[in-house]
């Protein structure tokens, strides 16, 4: 089995290399072309900075940008953690009682379908603490995929296995811990991967709406600020950090899912040893 961190359908041998090499080559070609276009046409940096300038700005402003990055990261991870814990807990509650599920699920859907940009201003008005309001916004978008995926997962346990547990007179707790939760794990992790990206988006969107300045501001505020000041290279640098963070979160959660599932689940199997 291949050891690389992209778990899904890892290709054996040389093909696995291509998964890393091919996109890297494309990325360098793209950056090169971008730099060339900017230089050849003499595009001013307040319209479109070249990638080299963006890189330099990233290094030069690293002090401010990294502080903001940490703040955004903190909100993203707290929102994701709360979403994971509450999503899992609520899904387990749903699995215990159809009535609870029927009464609460519609509200989770309402939460999900309401655009976060539309309710963020309200939340920011209602909640005095800025960090807390950002956290709530990020949580709202991250919550639903985990809840719905885990709910599906808990209901997807093999019916014969459920019968087997009944046959051996397993109690509710045993059924939950030994059967339902392991069955739901792949679904939960898939939900977590979606929510990881969403939590970041939620945090950024909410901060755009909040627009608060000062020392305790995240990357979104840096983007806004750089926009007002026509510091376009710095805006790009902040943007690079946002995307980089999103990619890093996705890869980290993919790796987590791979590590937890590789021994038994289809999604984490290399093609080479699939039956």
């Amino acid at each position, binding site marked *: 089995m291949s050891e690389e961190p992209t778990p899904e359908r890892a290709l054996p041998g040389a093909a696995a290399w291509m998964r890393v090499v091919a996109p890297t080559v494309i990325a360098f070609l793209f950056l090169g072309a971008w730099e060339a276009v900017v230089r050849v046409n003499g595009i001013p940096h307040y319209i479109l900075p070249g990638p080299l300038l963006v890189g330099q700005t990233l290094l030069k402003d690293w002090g401010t940008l990294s502080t903001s990055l940490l703040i955004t990261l903190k909100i993203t991870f707290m929102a994701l953690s709360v979403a994971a814990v509450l999503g899992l807990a609520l899904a387990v509650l749903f699995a215990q009682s159809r009535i609870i599920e029927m009464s609460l699920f519609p509200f989770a859907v309402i939460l999900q379908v309401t655009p976060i940009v539309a309710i963020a201003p309200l939340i920011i008005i209602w909640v005095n603490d800025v960090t807390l309001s950002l956290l709530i916004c990020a949580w709202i978008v991250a919550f639903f995929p985990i809840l719905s995926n885990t709910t599906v997962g808990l209901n997807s346990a093999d019916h014969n296995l459920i*019968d*087997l*547990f009944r046959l*051996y*007179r397993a109690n509710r707790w045993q059924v939950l811990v030994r059967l339902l939760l392991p069955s739901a794990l792949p679904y939960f992790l898939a939900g977590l991967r979606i929510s990881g990206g969403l939590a970041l988006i939620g945090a950024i969107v909410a901060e755009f709406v909040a627009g608060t300045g000062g020392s305790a501001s995240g990357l979104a505020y840096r983007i806004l600020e750089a926009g007002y000041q026509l510091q376009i290279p710095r805006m790009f640098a902040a943007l690079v950090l946002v995307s980089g963070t999103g990619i890093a979160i996705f890869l980290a959660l993919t790796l987590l899912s791979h590590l937890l599932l590789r*021994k038994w689940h289809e999604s984490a199997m290399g093609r080479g040893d699939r039956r």
Partner: protein
Amino acid sequence: MTPTRPLVALRGVAKRYATGTLALTGIDLDILPGDFVALLGPSGCGKSTLLRILAGLSGPTGGTIDWPGATHDAAGDPQRDIGFVFQEPTLMPWATVMRNVTLPLELAGVKRSEAEDRAAEWLARVELKGFERAYPRALSGGMRMRVSIARALVTRPRLLLMDEPFAALDEITRFRLNNDLLQLWEAERFTVVFVTHSVFESVFLAQRIVVMAPRPGRIAEEIAVEAPTPRGEEFRTSPDYAAQCRTVSHALSRAMAPAA
């Protein structure tokens, strides 16, 4: 017939599903301790339904089921003491072979170390020594079925219910597992109710074949199998075996013919 007290006695058992399907009607059946009964019949004649009723996984809508020898718990439920083997191996993919086999014991509160000892013993008996730490995914279909059988037997149940356990396997593997199951049964003499579509399998394995008829599911005939003990490849190729297969086959045709 026999003076022995049956393990389970069914009288006039019927099952009508909520959909209105009458899956079983008028089932009278005694299962004697140590018996090997095959339930043989076409698809849809209620074999699985009958097995699930025996297991207590589904209630009958008519008739009675007695467990004359069993003690009853506080709720009045008989201690059925059953092992069940499904058509699919039905293993927990996230658990090792060992954890799959210890499951019934752990659910019953047996200490893990003791459960593992007992599971290891049964894994050895189904020829899976050395695979304790493997995950089901890494096993062949026949090996998974063996795990399933070990799991069903690890509690030393008095009654082993098997619902077409080998139907999905290739013939070579099926023959081997048939032989192995017979050997286990001849050594242990637990009681078996074995559902099958196959005349050949039923004659090879069973002491008694219950031929069932469809629409509505009912018992058409019961046929005792005469065979030497132990049965082996010898029996499978003997003219006697062929003759009995013919008898059972005819009974099955009669059962499936529309009522005159």
